[in-house]
């Protein structure tokens, strides 16, 4: 079974289907009798709804229902899921606004759903949406997180003082203050981490189907956590989970964004309940910019204290984090759950972080590829480069000096991470070698002759993956000895099917073609939390491993019984009786297990196993990115020329897929650093980036060939030894690219470049630097 073994670059089993056009995304599903919904959204960032007139829309051709807040309230449905658990600075509970699926009395961001039209066709629903008349009284708005908590800022919620949602403190303040008092150097900088959007190629969509006869709801939707989704949605609908089925087909990208119960999920179910027919809603691309949850958007005031030798003594960070207009479970996590990344791979003994989460007149937030990790990585890795510049130490050298050596593992950082393993200096050295760090100045000089400003930048980042939690897996043999494999995880592009089949095939000796993979249907999946936080290889993979282990244990007993021996050996799918050399295959045993005569006394029939794997310790993927790029001196255009990565994600299950995850992550980090940004008009709060005409997406031409090597240091925190890989690429990319840009401009005295580093921004920086020098 070597071909499919763990560690082999196995090509994906899901690909032939997807490559033939056989994907089953939510918009591909058509249910007989299905109607179509469209949402009327707020055109204002903040306004009172004085009145809504739906009479013309109701009378329009093909319209089956026009729903407003009152209909939601009267349906018996409650708030959409709301965040909880955090506290304000004075210890009082966080501010948790009500969250109906359609706005009541007030709209709080451009795109806030106001009404929902259900009609025979999408076009008819769109036509009718245009006939709804809403009388708004426009209110002052605030979209900027920096201004949101200032005294006098417009309040989103009358009883939420200064728009503060919650405050989170982490680390040791006294020790940190002490370190700063003794420091020889203090590096201080404000970093603005821009707002971006996941822009999944498949937009969000849902089909709601209420079966009146059975009094049961089914939602077909785009998600990444089916069972958690069912729990949250059942609470909103005020029904037991058993009366709700959640089904996800193929998911066309998510990156964290599709992890929640959005307004439209409730609306299609209400629409179905009201009309008695299935209702489909699929977001258009332009709509998605004002309807989706966004990511990042915070302001970090950060300080690094150093001694005279460039050793880090303390780190102090104040973050203002944008929550948007409402919070849901998980929408607030980016503010606090990944601050550990700030400590980096460094010995820094004293760290303190103070986070204030702020409501503004903007879309709700959701995790996006890293969920606080890239933000934190950007802050620490930019600070390190600023320190290197200030102290005149090479950026590689200052990192090397401060790195935690392997012999200090396990190591408790100044924040939450308790690192179990890692060989940071080795990874750094390999990266420097790959990029030919020593030869850089020669390449810089050569570029200069072509009118190009060449820079090199690095980052060494670490993050947590597979936070303590659980995942389920089930292995079911059928009568012919083929297998159905079920996971609680939900792939949205990562290739779970391939890696899980590798594990099953490797352990049980069943050919992957005889394994059917199933996920995302709560009527079939028994257990699990879903995908997110770089957890699935570690937790989902381990669960599959445990389930297959249970199958082997049981099958060995059956085989021994059938062969009339006490014990059998099992290898590559074959059971062997030691004494007689008689053998049975896994398939023989699976078939036999359906018949009572083959079973040992008292053993249950069948060869099935479930597993619920849980960990209490997260793992810490880490890696080094080095970028070389050139800036056109005349135009500010950037061309990336070299990009190398050495990663440590523990045991590599499939190097082909790992590479895909890292490069994909990098492309999103590079996108944010160079071009992407959701922007709001500071006056009227309009989203100025409402389509692919204005929101700049990275294209193929932006990237050089990216070289990746792995330096696996397996972790003992799970049985496979893997560390999460899903977010690592994005985490390292932001600061590495930023550092390269600054390096390219350093001869002009430039020490920082804000994101996105558009050509115009870089051109202006060069103009200003030159003017300042003249």
């Amino acid at each position, binding site marked *: 079974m070597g071909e499919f073994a763990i560690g082999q670059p196995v090509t994906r089993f899901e690909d032939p289907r997807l490559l033939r056009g056989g994907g089953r995304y939510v918009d591909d599903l058509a249910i007989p009798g299905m109607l179509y919904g469209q949402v009327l959204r707020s055109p204002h960032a903040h306004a009172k709804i004085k009145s809504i007139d739906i009479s013309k829309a109701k009378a329009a051709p093909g319209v089956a229902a026009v729903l407003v807040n009152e209909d939601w309230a009267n349906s018996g449905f409650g708030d959409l899921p709301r965040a909880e658990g955090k506290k304000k600075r004075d210890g009082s509970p966080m501010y948790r606004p009500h969250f109906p699926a359609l706005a009541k009395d007030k709209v709080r961001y451009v795109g806030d759903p106001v009404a929902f039209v259900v009609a025979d066709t999408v*076009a008819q629903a*769109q*036509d009718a949406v*245009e006939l709804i008349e809403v009388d708004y009284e426009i209110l002052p708005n605030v979209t900027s997180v920096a201004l949101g908590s200032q005294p006098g800022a417009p309040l989103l919620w009358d009883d939420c003082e200064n728009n503060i949602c919650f405050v989170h403190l982490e680390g040791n303040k006294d020790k940190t203050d002490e370190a700063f008092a003794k420091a020889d150097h203090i590096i201080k900088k404000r970093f603005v981490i821009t707002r971006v959007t996941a822009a999944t190629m498949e937009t969000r969509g849902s089909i709601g189907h209420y079966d009146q006869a059975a009094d049961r709801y089914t939602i077909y939707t785009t998600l990444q956590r089916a069972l958690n989704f069912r729990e949250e949605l059942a609470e909103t609908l005020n029904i037991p989970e058993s009366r709700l089925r959640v089904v996800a087909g193929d998911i066309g990208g998510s990156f964290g964004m599709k992890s929640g119960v959005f307004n439209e999920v409730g609306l299609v179910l209400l629409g179905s309940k009201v009309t008695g027919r299935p209702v489909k809603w699929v977001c258009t691309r*332009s709509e998605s910019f004002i309807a989706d949850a966004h990511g990042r958007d915070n302001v970090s005031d950060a300080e690094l204290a150093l001694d005279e030798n460039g050793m880090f003594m303390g780190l102090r960070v104040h973050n203002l984090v944008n929550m948007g207009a409402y919070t849901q479970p998980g929408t607030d996590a980016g503010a606090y759950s990944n601050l550990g990344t700030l400590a980096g791979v460094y010995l820094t003994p004293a760290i303190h972080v103070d986070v204030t989460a702020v409501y503004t007149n903007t879309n709700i937030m959701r995790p996006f590829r890293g969920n606080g990790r890239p933000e934190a990585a950007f802050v620490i890795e930019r600070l390190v480069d600023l320190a290197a510049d200030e102290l005149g130490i090479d950026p590689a050298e200052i990192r090397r000096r401060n790195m935690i050596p392997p012999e200090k593992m396990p190591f408790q950082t100044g924040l939450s991470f308790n690192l179990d393993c890692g060989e940071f200096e080795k990874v750094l050295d390999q990266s420097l070698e790959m990029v030919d760090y020593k030869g850089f100045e020669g390449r810089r000089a050569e570029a200069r002759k072509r009118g190009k400003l060449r820079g090199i930048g690095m980052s060494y980042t670490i993050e947590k993956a597979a936070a303590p939690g659980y995942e389920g897996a089930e292995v079911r043999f059928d009568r012919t000895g083929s297998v159905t494999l079920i996971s609680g995880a939900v792939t949205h592009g990562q290739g779970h099917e391939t890696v899980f089949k590798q594990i099953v095939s490797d352990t049980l000796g069943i050919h992957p073609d005889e394994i059917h993979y199933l996920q995302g249907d709560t009527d079939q999946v028994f257990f699990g939390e879903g995908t997110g936080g770089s957890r699935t290889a570690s937790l989902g993979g381990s669960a599959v491993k445990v389930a297959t282990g249970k199958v082997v244990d049981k099958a060995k007993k059956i085989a021994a019984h059938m062969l009339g021996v006490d014990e059998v050996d099992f290898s590559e799918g074959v059971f062997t009786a030691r004494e007689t050399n008689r053998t049975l295959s896994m398939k023989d045993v699976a078939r036999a297990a359906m018949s009572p005569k083959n079973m040992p006394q008292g053993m249950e029939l069948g060869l099935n196993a479930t597993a619920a794997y849980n960990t209490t310790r997260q793992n810490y993927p880490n890696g080094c990115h080095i970028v070389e790029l050139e800036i056109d001196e*005349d*135009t500010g*255009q950037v061309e990336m020329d070299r990009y190398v990565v050495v990663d440590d994600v523990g045991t590599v299950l499939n190097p082909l897929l790992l590479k895909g995850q890292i490069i994909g992550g990098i492309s999103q980090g590079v996108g944010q650093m160079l*071009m992407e940004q959701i*922007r709001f008009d500071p006056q009227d709060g309009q989203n*100025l*980036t409402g389509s*692919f*005409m*204005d*929101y*700049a*997406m990275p294209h193929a031409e932006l990237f050089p060939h990216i070289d990746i090597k792995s330096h696996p240091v397996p972790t003992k925190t799970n049985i496979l030894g893997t560390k999460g890989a899903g977010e690592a690429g994005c985490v390292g990319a932001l600061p590495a690219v930023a550092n390269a840009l600054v390096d390219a401009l350093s001869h002009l005295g430039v020490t920082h470049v804000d994101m996105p580093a*558009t*050509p*115009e921004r870089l*051109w*202006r920086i060069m103009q200003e630097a030159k003017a300042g020098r003249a």
Partner: protein
Amino acid sequence: MHNFNYHRAADVADASGKLTSLDDPKILAGGMTLLPTLKNRLAAPSDLIDLAGIADLKGISVEGNEVVVRAMTPHAVVAASAEVQKALPALAQLAGNIGDPAVRHRGTIGGSVANSDPAADYPAGCVGLDATIVTNKRKIAADDFFLGLFETALEEGEVITSVRFKIPDRAHYMKFRHPASGYAVVGVMVAQYGSKVRVAVTGAGPCVFRVSEMEAALEKSFAPASIANIKVSAEQLMGDIHCSAEYRAHLISVYARRAVEAMV
């Protein structure tokens, strides 16, 4: 998209007649701008008149000192045409960088020119290459054709049938692509005709325009240095969240200079 009536024009006269007689009609050429506009409900014409079936609106020929591109010729055909590549490579290069390959397979020169989109490439090609826009009624010099933002000299019932580009001694087109849309933020066509030089700019203003100061300087001495210090005022230029008017003004200088560098 609002619904509309769809007509296949049998010939140009038929199209022109329908254009005059119907309520609020629009010509459908390649549809690369019109259809997205309709999809986003930014326009709601009563009727679309499709020119795709009119055979004599397609094709390219070199006639004397002119390259003639018929109105319904797709950009990809212009870009790949051996005749154009030989007679007027700058035009092939311009056409080959409009939008993307799929857009170039469908988008047409007539549609692009008739629309006068401020960020389209062809207007710079027309004005820079001293083109004549030929309609079913008359011939209009490109200099007189593009009047403003989405505004042209076309009158009611008038249909573009071809564009005649004057073959220059040499020419070059350079374009700075919009990071999101791919349209021209600044596109500069520089063309030399004996002692005369044309510098036409698209993308930067509400409509294509010529930079007479650069033309005069290049007519004196055709070298990058001649225009190195000529700046276009940002006052009349457009700005958006990606590129301000001031930056566009700067890019005009850079791209004009680079176009000349590529020519000498």
